[in-house]
């Protein structure tokens, strides 16, 4: 699914936080790369530094040392062509704006005309199964639907890179499966390079081409596990395969520090 062009690269990334009690070393020496069209998950124990790594990838923060490049350029602020879906949809959508306005706000700077914007919104809402919800407010929708709006907003900007931090952590199990399949579909339709943090190892295996396992304090990349499950993937068949079970057991052991 990948053309071999490097979109994201992290080179010897170190991150320390200054805290009132002193310096906290969070990331020790992180290197990995993400090819065009690839889907990578970042997993690791709670508090290991997954969100920290994502924030560095977005350019919202600068690493203490090492570099992050996107398209070969060192990232110092959020690069063009970036889209994000964060865990807490109640906090990432603006309750005072309709679904339509929430999606169109990031679109404005792309210089699209009014009709192009309306068409884009129609297209992405259809993609996520929310056609006709333009005029609703986020709080009128269920949690799963709100996260779909956040996904629609992300794909509306035609991003080159999509970054997601535990995007499905606050929805129920059934909705979670639906949203995972939505992400697979979106990815197939739009060919977006994606980096996603998740706590759910099964989810990481199900969705990814590679899983970056962080471990330790400060954290290192324990291993980058390639996932060769065939496409198209599907909840029953893919999860039932023998490789699936092997991969999840292996990653589980690494996250638990057993290997």
């Amino acid at each position, binding site marked *: 699914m990948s053309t071999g062009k490097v979109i994201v690269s992290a080179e010897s990334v170190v991150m320390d936080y200054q805290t009132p009690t002193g310096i906290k070393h969070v990331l020790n020496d992180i290197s990995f790369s993400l090819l065009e069209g690839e889907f990578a998950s970042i997993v690791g124990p709670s508090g290991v530094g997954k969100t920290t790594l994502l924030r560095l990838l*977005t350019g*919202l923060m600068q690493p203490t040392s090492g570099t992050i490049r996107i398209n070969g350029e060192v990232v110092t602020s959020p690069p063009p062509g970036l889209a994000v879906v*964060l*865990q807490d949809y109640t906090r990432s959508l*603006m309750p005072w*704006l309709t679904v339509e306005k929430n999606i169109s*706000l990031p679109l*404005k*700077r792309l210089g699209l005309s009014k009709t192009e914007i309306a068409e884009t919104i129609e297209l992405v809402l259809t993609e996520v199964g929310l056609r006709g919800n333009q005029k609703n407010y986020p709080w009128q929708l269920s949690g799963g639907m709100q996260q779909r709006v956040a996904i629609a907003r992300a794909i509306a900007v035609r991003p080159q890179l999509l970054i997601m931090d535990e995007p499905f952590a606050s929805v129920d199990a059934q909705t979670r499966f639906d949203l995972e399949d939505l992400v697979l579909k979106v990815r197939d339709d739009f060919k977006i390079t994606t980096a996603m943090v998740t706590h759910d190892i099964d989810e990481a295996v199900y969705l990814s081409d590679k899983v970056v396992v962080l471990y330790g304090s400060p954290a290192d990349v324990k291993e980058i596990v390639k996932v060769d499950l065939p496409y198209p993937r599907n909840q029953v068949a893919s999860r039932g395969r023998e490789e699936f079970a092997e991969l999840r057991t292996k990653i589980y052991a690494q996250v638990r520090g057993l290997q």
Partner: protein
Amino acid sequence: MKGANISVIRRFLPGVVSMLGFMLLWQLGTSFGPLSGGSLPSAINAISALGALFVLPEIWLAIGQTLFIALTGLLISVVLGIPAGVLVGLSPFAYRSLKPVLDFFKVIPPIVIIPIVILVFGPTTEMGIFLVVFANFFMLVFQSAYGVRDLDTVLLDTLRCYGMTKWDEIWHARIPGALPFIAVGVRIAVAASMIVAVVAGLIGGAPSLGQQMLLYQSSGQPNQTFAIVIIFGVLGLGLARIYSRLQRKIVFWTD
């Protein structure tokens, strides 16, 4: 239709009943209880005095003056206080520099500056308006500044990742995000404006219901004095109701 009638009754009946109960207690308390025989008027006396007051032009004038002082002061403090607060909140430096000043003025009750204000304005309507503005301004500045600063970090991160300009961030996120805080400030200001408008008359001698009340009290007319308390209560309640409706429209996404 019938269902609607029943739900209207359900909604208002408890309030009406407890109001009547309160009146009854008041009447009984002033007729038989330990309060009887004092100068505290009974419910019936106060209410009939209230009826009699309504034919007096000076009462209508006093109501008008009170509302004028309260609403003009409210308007001025809203128009000055909210933008000032938004600006202060948008600049971390301004916020840090001005917060001690705001905190200081916020805790000064408007009553204590009446002697000073009278020196400047005399016992006038302007004095009343100034007091109302003084009572509200710093609180509104504080609420607005706090509101624009309080933007959720997840939302802020999201907007920054999408390359939103500073202006979009302010206009589409910080200001609407501050509205619930501002609305609470205005709610407090609505109540405070009425109180201060009356106090300005009662203590500062500005023309208002407070001044009328003082007049009745000093001429030994407890029934009328009490009737004014009731007028004041009704006016305050009315304003609060009107504002509640407005508030629900402005910050429609909160509940």
